[in-house]
């Protein structure tokens, strides 16, 4: 039995909009185990963004419990949440959110500047390089985001999310700004990471994207409506072991 990474009980989030109270989350229970690949789906206004903000420790619930990687994080202060985000969560955003006019390698190094990374400058550089290699971005270390395609920028963002070796990778509509071919590439990377044991939580409203996950959670009106196991749609990757082009070259 895998150990749970995310344990959410009776989670409620109420927004006060003038006189009206809006219950964005109305009693959510969710457990995600280590090594899972969960897609959280729902239409806009369903509460999935609020859920993502709380899972990502960007926001605090009004009530309920949230245990992340064994620690109760539901009532932490701003700075404590920043420390948790740095150490345990790797964010991937729809609009990539890389620092402009900053090289890929520096973007990837950024989380290490704010955390407890004990290594030297060279170690930091090496960690960032390793992370970029992991998402297949060799030779682009010095490029600025404006010199990269959307897919490449999202790879840099994924490398940045991975560099601190977080407990979960939290991807918020990571393919929302990408064409369908690049979207599939990015989902392939997530599947590879998941194969290596990374826990991935994906927030999306597109069924085509969600079907690449192993489990799909439907959110509606602040509640979990459906929680289903999904027959994962595997992506054939040209770089994967089975279809190595090198084999053909040596045959010919």
């Amino acid at each position, binding site marked *: 039995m895998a150990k749970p990474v995310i344990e959410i009980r009776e989670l409620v989030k109420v927004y006060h909009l003038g006189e009206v109270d809006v219950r964005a989350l109305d009693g959510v229970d969710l457990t995600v185990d280590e090594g899972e690949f969960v897609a959280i789906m729902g239409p806009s206004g369903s509460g999935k963004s609020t859920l993502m903000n709380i899972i990502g420790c960007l926001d605090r619930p009004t009530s309920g419990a949230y245990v992340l990687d064994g620690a109760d994080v539901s009532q932490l202060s701003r700075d404590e949440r920043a420390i948790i985000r740095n150490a345990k969560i790797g964010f991937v955003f729809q609009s990539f*959110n890389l620092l402009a006019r900053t090289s890929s390698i520096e973007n990837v190094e950024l989380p290490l500047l704010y955390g407890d990374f004990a290594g030297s400058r060279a170690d930091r550089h090496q960690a960032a390089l390793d992370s970029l290699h992991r998402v297949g971005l060799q030779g682009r270390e010095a490029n600025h985001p404006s010199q990269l395609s959307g897919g490449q920028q999202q790879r840099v963002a994924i490398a940045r999310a991975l560099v601190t070796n977080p407990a979960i990778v939290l991807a918020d509509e990571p393919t929302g700004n990408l064409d369908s071919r690049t979207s599939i590439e990015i989902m392939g990377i997530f599947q590879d990471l998941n194969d290596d044991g990374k826990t991935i939580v994906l927030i999306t409203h597109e069924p085509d994207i969600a079907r690449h996950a192993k489990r799909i959670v439907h959110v509606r009106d602040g509640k979990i409506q459906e929680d289903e196991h999904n027959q994962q749609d595997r992506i054939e990757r040209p770089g994967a072991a089975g279809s190595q082009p090198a084999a053909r070259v040596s045959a010919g």
Partner: protein
Amino acid sequence: MRNSFVRLGNITVVGLKSIARNKMRSLLTALGIVIGVACVIVSVAIGAGVAQSVSEMINSLGSNYIMIMPGTSTQSGARMFTGQSTLSEDDAEAIRREVPAVAYVSPNLRTAAQVVAGELNWSTSIQGVGIDWPNIRSWNVEDGSFFTEGDVRSGSKVAVLGKTVADSLFPNGGAAGSIIRIKNVPFRVTGVLEKKGGSMMGSDQDDVIVAPYTTVMKRLMGQNRFGMIIASAVSAEEVPNAMDQIDALLRQRHRIPQGGDADFMMRSQEEIAQANAQQVGLMRNLLLGIAIVSLFVGGIGIMNIMLVSVTERTREIGIRMAIGARGRHVLLQFLFEAVTLSVLGGLLGVLFGIGVAKLIEKAIKWPIVVSPEAIVVAFVVAATIGIFFGFYPARKASKLDPIDALRYE
């Protein structure tokens, strides 16, 4: 402990990179500080230079020097400045005879003229003086001799050249004994004065021709107008005494009652130096005022651009917070940026200020002393301004909500 130190270093790296990414804007932002610090450097340099040259001037002119200038005359209660000088040759003679505290007396008239020697000509100032003049100014003739009492009495057309004039009119030497023409009047050069150098206010003291005052009055100025009288006391201690005695004598001679306004003015060398210093000090204070205003405006400029920067980079702040930047990381980053901007501005300002100071020294020959203390003070001021005016924007940045900041377009 070590870790937090490393992290602080990381934050400074973050701030530096951000400045490097916006070079032009950073430069413009720091401009107010640049000008302010440059003004501080220049004003302090001028002040220090003046203080130094006041003492130099007193030494170079002799501390017993007294200047008596014609003033306004009062006739039937109406104070007026007549064309005629209120001083005369007889006054000078009376001072020589009757004031024991005075060692030397000389009339002193000034005019300007074009001087010609052979093919060469030179425009300079002509001083008409008596034979005591070299003693009063402690200024000797190095080549040839000074004119004699007989020359003064008879109004001979003789002259002594300052070093600059001699070098300009007689580049190959041989000035003494030659004939020059001043306003078309031929003068025989009896000697050349030793080099004296620049005066406190930057004029070249060697750019001068000295001739008997009688000759200057009659031949060059074409009128019987007398100038001022210069004198020197027997010793520095006797200067106040000499001034009192001269005052009493001239009042008596000019029939000015006790307590009435004198029709002449008197300055000792020290007073002249102080007056000049005061003038320069005024200039320095003005510059210092500009410096303070400029630094303040520069500080507001930094605050303004940092506020713009915080708004513009709201998303960046959101990204940084999302990946783990704490409030104080963001605060320190922006504070560090502000301080770096102002200190860079301070550095440029110091260089600029030294440049301007050198330029002033060259152009208007004011004495300038750039002191290391001024540079340190300017730096500290610049850094303080950066902290003071950078704090509010930095705090604002650190208080942003990461969710809102990430959503900011």
